[in-house]
């Protein structure tokens, strides 16, 4: 009995509302009548009648829906813009604060990203691992030994070859310095020996030549910058060069310089590993004794990291099981482990064999600071908007009265906050763009704003929306909840509790700021303390020169004499390594009274020339220095105090120490001639290692002591002239020992600088917020202040009245911040062995400083308000 559905829905779709009853009703009535005689015909007739009714008179207007969301949003933005311009001071504060916060967040975001994507430059990132060693010692498992021995390379290349695509040894991390030269040029460059598979494994980006560049014994691969320096941009393949004036090599490839965020950054040339093997006969001779190389592997296509790791775990133990000279080593039960490339940068800091979480913690810590600073900026925004709510509550009332519903008001306030956030974001980009070079300098990075990266924009937009949402949520949700009647009547006196959230926000801000200030001060205090630690020698006016050519040894005496003749040099010494680091650590020492059950001690062993002590100026606790005149001194040793402590000798001078060591090819008695005060050669944050100085063996570094009272600018040209005469083939390349020593603090100084930067930004942002809030409060109480003044209040009492509230808030923040930062700082510095205890005045001065800054900020507004002419302020309205 029902009329055809399609026809009826068509009718309902087009028909005007005021005719649908008549038409549909009539049609249905007729249909039912027709249906009794012929159902089929009735259906047709119904449809036909619907079609006949489809005429202009009855068709509804389809233009209908009058809403245009674009216009509505445009209005929101227009009103937002007008609000910004009208309250220019507030908006400037708001935008500056937010922009600063965002700039910090962006920079920190870039930095964290850079840290987390370290080494991803290499295409085989997921397939590369470093071979490391672990062993058991006194029931403890020690991991993270990165230096391995040469035979392990051969072992992995033969017995375990099916696990790996490439097995690539390199000659120590960071490379070595050498003089590269062509016929007309010579330059100092840093490079290393590398296994043939290296270029392919590390996916070198070749400019000339290909990945097989290290296959030839006398090949050399050079970086693009080096090629430019030598061959001024021409294809140098096949051109001859010399390394350290003695080795002839041929350029076999030019690769793009490695970016800073890679393991191979700074390396400018590579020579084939097999050349090293041939050149240095000791490599094969020393066998499993000498841990001196880094070993990298790339996994074979079908092998996982875990499988390969399991396969090679006992490689060394199996190989040395039957070697006579390694019998003593079997007790350590060495494991060979694979360290995947993703862990190299942030998860490979081992201390005494245990993984330290320092680097990754630092990343998260800095990241957390970024979030905090951004949060501070957002809090300011919320704070100012809520403070201004009373002014805008009338607007809300009117809008509601003329028909705005709450969701529209929420949308309006959100669009306003998005407007501010968008402005701030642009400003932040500008700030980041301008400050990034400077920040890169501090942080030791080379970051850029990745404008061409689409994911950067995606993140930025998400970031804008998130910030806009967070910072706009409170005003949007709070303001829109006002009741229009009470607002317009003016009866929305904010009660005692409405200011509580605002106060909480101020306290949170200042707590964070004060904590950052205290931590920064704490870090600097530690730094100063360690910098003043006695180093045990005189590092001023001491030059260190690497002996890069055999000519140094051949012309040793001539060089010495000529240097001394200049009159600006008092002494010339030599040593096996830099004064600022011990390279060689050895066991195998026996002395009288040594407890046979005691664990084997490693001593830093440094071979020095007899003049070394005089050159560096070490200080004696007992005994005498080496002397070139005394014949027996070739078997003499000098200890430092730390070594004496370990050896527990009562009367050390004259005692005999026996040293047996295969790698050094030594097995003889030495007699102690002296004990020096501890020299800090390694990290100044750690205790001095026991060290033994001996005149035995070869020396690698030349040390020159400039005469006291002679300035370096005067001395250097004279010294350089001597070198140019005596050893003309090698460029004069020197380092100041005091600078080398200072570089030991670079990490801590960097953290200190960054912390100082963030702390000052945090306090600036907090103060911007406080300034806005204080000026708002002052403005609100204009009339009250005027009346008070008329009744006789003094400027100072008004100032006290206006400042007091904020000062209390800041004091509360300090009370929260002090224990919190004490906890953090205490944890942070406890990882340093040599440290100063935290002093109360660090906390006190940081708190007082924050208080003073806050007071100044508030006073600026308070005094301005208090000085106002009461006639004018009361007359308002």
């Amino acid at each position, binding site marked *: 009995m029902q*009329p055809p559905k399609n026809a009826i829905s068509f009718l309902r779709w087009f028909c005007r509302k005021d*005719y*649908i*009853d*008549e*038409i*549909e*009703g*009539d*049609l*249905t*009535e*007729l249909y*039912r009548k027709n249906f009794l005689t012929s159902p089929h015909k009735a259906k047709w007739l119904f449809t036909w*009648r619907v079609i*006949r*009714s489809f*005429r202009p*008179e*009855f068709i509804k207007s389809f233009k209908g829906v009058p809403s245009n969301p674009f216009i509505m949003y445009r209005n929101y933005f227009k009103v937002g813009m007008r609000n910004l311009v009208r309250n220019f001071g507030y908006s400037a504060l708001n935008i500056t604060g937010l922009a600063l916060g965002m700039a910090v967040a962006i920079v920190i975001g870039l930095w964290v990203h850079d840290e987390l994507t370290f080494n991803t430059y290499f295409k085989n990132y997921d397939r590369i691992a470093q071979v490391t060693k672990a062993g058991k010692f006194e029931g403890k498992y020690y991991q993270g030994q990165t230096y391995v021995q040469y035979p392990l390379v051969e072992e992995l290349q033969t017995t375990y070859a099916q696990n790996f695509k490439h097995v690539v040894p390199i000659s120590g991390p960071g490379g070595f310095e050498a003089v590269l030269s062509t016929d007309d040029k010579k330059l100092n460059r840093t490079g290393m020996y590398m296994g043939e598979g290296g270029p392919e494994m590390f996916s070198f980006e070749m400019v000339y030549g290909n990945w097989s560049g290290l296959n030839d014994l006398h090949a050399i691969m050079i970086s693009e910058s080096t090629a430019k320096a030598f061959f001024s941009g021409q294809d140098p393949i096949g051109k001859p060069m010399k390394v350290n004036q003695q080795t002839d090599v041929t350029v076999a490839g030019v690769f793009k310089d490695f970016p800073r965020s890679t393991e191979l950054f700074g390396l400018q040339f590579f020579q084939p590993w097999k050349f090293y093997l041939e050149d240095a006969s000791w490599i094969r001779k020393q066998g499993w004794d000498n841990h001196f190389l880094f070993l990298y592997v790339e996994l074979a296509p079908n092998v996982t990291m875990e499988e390969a790791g399991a396969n090679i775990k006992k490689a060394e133990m199996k190989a040395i099981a039957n070697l006579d000279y390694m019998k003593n080593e079997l007790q350590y039960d060495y494991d060979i482990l694979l360290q995947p490339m993703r862990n190299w940068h942030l998860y490979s800091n081992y201390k005494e064999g245990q993984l330290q979480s320092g680097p990754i913690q630092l990343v998260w810590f800095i990241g957390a600071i970024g979030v905090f600073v951004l949060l501070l900026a957002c809090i300011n925004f919320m704070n100012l908007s809520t403070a201004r709510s009373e002014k805008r509550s009338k607007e809300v009332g009117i809008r509601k009265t003329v028909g705005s519903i709450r969701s529209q008001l929420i949308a309006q306030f959100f669009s306003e906050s998005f407007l501010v956030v968008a402005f701030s974001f642009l400003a932040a980009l500008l700030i980041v763009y301008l400050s990034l070079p400077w920040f890169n300098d501090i942080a030791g990075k080379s970051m850029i704003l990745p404008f061409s990266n689409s994911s950067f924009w995606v993140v930025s937009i998400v970031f804008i929306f998130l910030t806009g949402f967070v910072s706009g949520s409170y005003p949007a949700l709070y303001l829109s909840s006002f009741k229009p009647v009470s607002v317009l009547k003016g009866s929305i006196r904010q009660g005692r509790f409405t200011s509580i959230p605002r106060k909480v926000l101020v306290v949170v801000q200042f707590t964070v700021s004060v904590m950052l200030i205290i931590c920064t001060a704490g870090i600097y205090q530690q730094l100063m303390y360690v910098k003043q630690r006695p180093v045990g020698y005189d590092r001023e006016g001491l030059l260190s020169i690497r002996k890069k050519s055999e000519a140094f040894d051949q012309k040793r005496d001539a060089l010495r004499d000529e240097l001394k003749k200049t009159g600006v040099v008092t002494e010339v010494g030599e040593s096996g390594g830099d004064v600022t680091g011990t390279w060689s650590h050895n066991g195998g020492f026996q002395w009288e009274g040594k407890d046979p059950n005691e664990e084997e001690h490693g001593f830093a062993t440094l071979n020095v020339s007899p003049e070394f002590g005089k050159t560096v100026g070490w200080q004696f606790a007992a005994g005498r220095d080496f002397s070139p005149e005394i014949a027996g001194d070739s078997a003499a040793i000098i200890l430092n105090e730390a070594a004496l402590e370990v050896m527990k000798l009562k009367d050390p001078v004259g005692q005999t120490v026996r040293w047996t060591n295969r790698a050094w090819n030594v097995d003889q008695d030495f007699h102690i001639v002296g004990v020096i005060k501890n020299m800090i050669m390694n990290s100044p944050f750690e205790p001095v290692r026991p060290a033994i100085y001996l005149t035995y063996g070869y020396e690698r570094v030349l040390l020159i002591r400039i005469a006291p009272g002679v300035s370096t600018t005067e001395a250097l040209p004279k010294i350089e002239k001597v070198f140019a005469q005596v050893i003309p083939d090698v460029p004069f390349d020197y380092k100041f020992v005091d600078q080398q020593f200072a570089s030991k603090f670079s990490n801590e100084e960097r953290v200190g600088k960054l912390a100082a930067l963030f702390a000052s930004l945090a306090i600036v942002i907090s103060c911007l917020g406080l300034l806005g809030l204080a000026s708002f409060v002052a403005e609100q109480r204009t009339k009250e202040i005027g009346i008070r003044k008329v009744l006789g209040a003094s400027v100072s009492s008004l100032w006290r009245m206006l400042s007091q509230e904020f000062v209390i808030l800041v004091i509360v923040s300090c009370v929260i911040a002090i224990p919190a930062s004490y906890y953090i700082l205490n944890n942070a510095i406890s990882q340093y062995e040599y440290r100063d205890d935290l002093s109360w005045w660090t906390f006190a001065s940081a708190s007082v400083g924050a208080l003073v800054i806050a007071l100044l900020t508030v006073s600026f507004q308070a005094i301005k308000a208090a000085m106002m002419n009461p006639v004018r302020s009361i007359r308002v309205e």
Partner: protein
Amino acid sequence: MKEQSLGEFEELVLLMVAALHPEAYGVAILENLEVRLAKKFNISAVHVALKRLDDKGLVRSTFGGITEERGGRRKKFYQITALGKKVLDAQYEVRTSIYAEIPKISFT
């Protein structure tokens, strides 16, 4: 003001609205016209005529109650207005006066 003019069908519908007073609505008008004139009409023609009469102010409408046989739709009842009656009267007068003047014509 322009003289109200009526089309032939409109006049018929207006007459029928007046005749069926006060129960004149679409279907009733249609059926009565069909019976009287022995001719089929389409309902939409009636609707259009009613709308035009409404626009000219010759009829006005009221809604009745919802009934089952109309599928839940209300009846729209039309009543003739005073103006409508006047137009009808004028029309009737014109016709009868002209009719009265017809001489006796013989149709052989």
